[in-house]
């Protein structure tokens, strides 16, 4: 990375409008408040900073077009752009995570959820608690509501999953929200009857695949040591069922997530190949979080973030090569950042937005009715930290929760405009920080970005993406553009006039 020698510049503050800059490779990325960007050579950057850009030049036109020139700065355009980027601010939480049980039949070395053994039936959510949680979820001011079934393993408490679906659909007849259900499951307890019910009730199904069979089975342990085989069987079966229902399988398929451990790092190619072989259209190369068992096993599974970024670059380089050969697969982090960078839109991924989604984009409901700012907050509670505990379904209203003193603090803490370092970072318009992770890893909801792991990952990924954008390979640009094309999966939105689903069907 080559830094500009600013001391040798004759800076002219009257030429440039407000901008932030960051050297990337042999170029310099500049971005403005509303999130437009340009990638300049050092010579172009010098002209820009010194205000010596010739008015008839292509550089001047590019700067003007992207609103980087003070004299011609278009305030109304900037305001409209910013409003579009921050569309999520004016609505309440849309994601409602319901932990229907802590019981899980798998034992994962990095389990973030603090799972309980299968005999811990006291960690099952009751139908009464579930109904109260749904009532709060549906009282959100957001017209979109996604209820996400989490655990533990949600299929362990399948009757309550069914009850939530049926109760929420019934309640929503009066409310008219755009309601969706998502289930995050290891799939090992799936059967044809349950699948039929979930498909009929339009429940989107997500699972975990950590990479090739040996790695997956070593990290996600079933007593029978066949977690991979079971997940793969049901991924194929569910995708096949979507096809039988006449749904476009490029759009409707099981989404799989992975968690990167130290063992994953050398297997970047095998991980990508596994996903492609399964017909997955997206990989999410997520680093391990410092929650749950991962905190206890960190000496065995953690790694320097520089090693993760090396892994990320190799994996995404390979994904790009596969795309050039006609294989349609994308990396989810890249897709989230590129949508913000190239489209000027925010895909509302709650961990990468400013302010972050805790309490104002999501709420998490634990099996016992306790409510948290986010699923990470619930995980921390299970580890003995109650900082992000907001209340209980029995005693608190929606307004109590979203206006809670802790939520206010988290919104301020995750607003990058007030965050030291972030406020000067060229990636500010595209980035986000996670208060609960900051609190766990750095003892402050604000965090310290200079030695913050999430910041290192976000910056590293965006460095990679801007390097690729700066190289200007038309094939790569076309691939990146495709990764930002959001196609709505309308099948998963519940029909308001649908007959009440029958649990026995």
């Amino acid at each position, binding site marked *: 990375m080559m830094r500009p020698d600013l001391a040798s510049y004759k800076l002219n503050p009257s030429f440039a409008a407000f901008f932030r800059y960051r050297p990337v490779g042999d170029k310099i990325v500049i971005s403005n408040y509303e999130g437009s960007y340009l990638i300049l050579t050092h010579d172009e950057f010098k002209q820009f900073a010194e205000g010596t850009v010739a008015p008839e030049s292509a550089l001047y036109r590019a700067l003007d077009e992207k609103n980087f020139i003070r004299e011609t700065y278009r305030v109304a355009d900037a305001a409209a752009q910013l409003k579009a980027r921050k569309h999520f601010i004016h609505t309440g939480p849309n994601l409602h995570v319901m932990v229907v049980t802590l019981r899980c039949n798998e034992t994962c070395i990095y389990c973030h959820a603090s799972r309980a053994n299968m005999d811990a039936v006291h960690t099952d959510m009751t139908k009464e608690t579930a109904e109260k949680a749904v009532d709060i979820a549906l009282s959100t001011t957001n017209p979109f509501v996604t209820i996400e079934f989490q655990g533990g393993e949600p299929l362990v408490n399948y009757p309550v999953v069914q009850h939530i679906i049926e109760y929420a659909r019934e309640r929503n007849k009066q409310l008219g929200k755009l309601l969706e259900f998502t289930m995050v499951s290891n799939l090992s307890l799936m059967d044809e009857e349950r699948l039929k019910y979930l498909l009929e009730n339009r429940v989107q199904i997500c699972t975990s695949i950590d990479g090739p069979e040996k790695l997956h089975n070593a990290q996600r342990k079933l007593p029978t040591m066949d977690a991979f085989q079971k997940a793969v069987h049901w991924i194929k079966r569910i995708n096949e069922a979507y096809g039988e229902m006449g749904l476009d399988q490029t759009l409707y398929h099981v989404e799989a997530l992975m968690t990167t451990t130290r063992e994953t790092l050398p297997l970047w190619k095998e991980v990508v190949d596994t996903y492609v072989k399964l017909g997955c259209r997206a990989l999410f190369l997520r680093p391990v979080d410092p929650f749950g068992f991962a905190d206890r096993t960190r000496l065995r599974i953690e790694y320097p973030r520089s090693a993760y970024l090396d892994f990320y670059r190799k994996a995404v380089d390979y994904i790009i090569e596969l795309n050039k050969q006609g294989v349609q697969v994308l990396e989810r982090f890249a897709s989230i950042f590129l949508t913000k960078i190239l489209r000027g839109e925010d895909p509302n991924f709650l961990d990468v937005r400013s302010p972050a989604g805790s309490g104002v984009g999501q709420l998490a409901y634990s099996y016992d009715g306790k409510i948290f700012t986010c699923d990470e907050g619930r995980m921390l509670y299970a580890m003995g*930290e*109650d*900082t992000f505990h907001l209340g209980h379904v029995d005693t608190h209203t929606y307004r109590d929760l979203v*206006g809670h*003193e*802790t939520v*206010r*603090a988290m919104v301020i803490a995750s607003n990058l405009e007030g965050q030291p370092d972030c406020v000067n970072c060229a990636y500010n318009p595209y980035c986000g920080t996670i208060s609960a992770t900051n609190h766990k890893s750095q003892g*402050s*909801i604000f965090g310290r970005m200079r030695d913050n792991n999430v910041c290192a990952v976000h910056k590293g990924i965006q460095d990679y993406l801007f390097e690729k954008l700066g190289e200007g390979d038309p094939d790569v640009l076309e691939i990146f553009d495709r990764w930002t094309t959001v196609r709505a999966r309308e099948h998963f939105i519940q029909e308001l006039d649908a007959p009440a689903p029958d649990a026995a069907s």
Partner: protein
Amino acid sequence: MSARELRFHRDIYAGEAVDEAVKLFSGFADFELREQDDAWIVSLTAKNPAQQTRLCGEFSNFALGLTIQRGGSE
């Protein structure tokens, strides 16, 4: 008019900031203060009932601002 209970977690809010906010807002509301192991609990009753919700919001924001000015909860 019933009091509204506000819960300022000690990991996030400075006790001195909460106290200072109480002093400043005491012209507009009656306060009762309690301490728990992990939080400062403030019960707020607005002198003008119509202002209860707004006062709770403004008071919380003020306590947060004072905490940030102090550089955090420590």
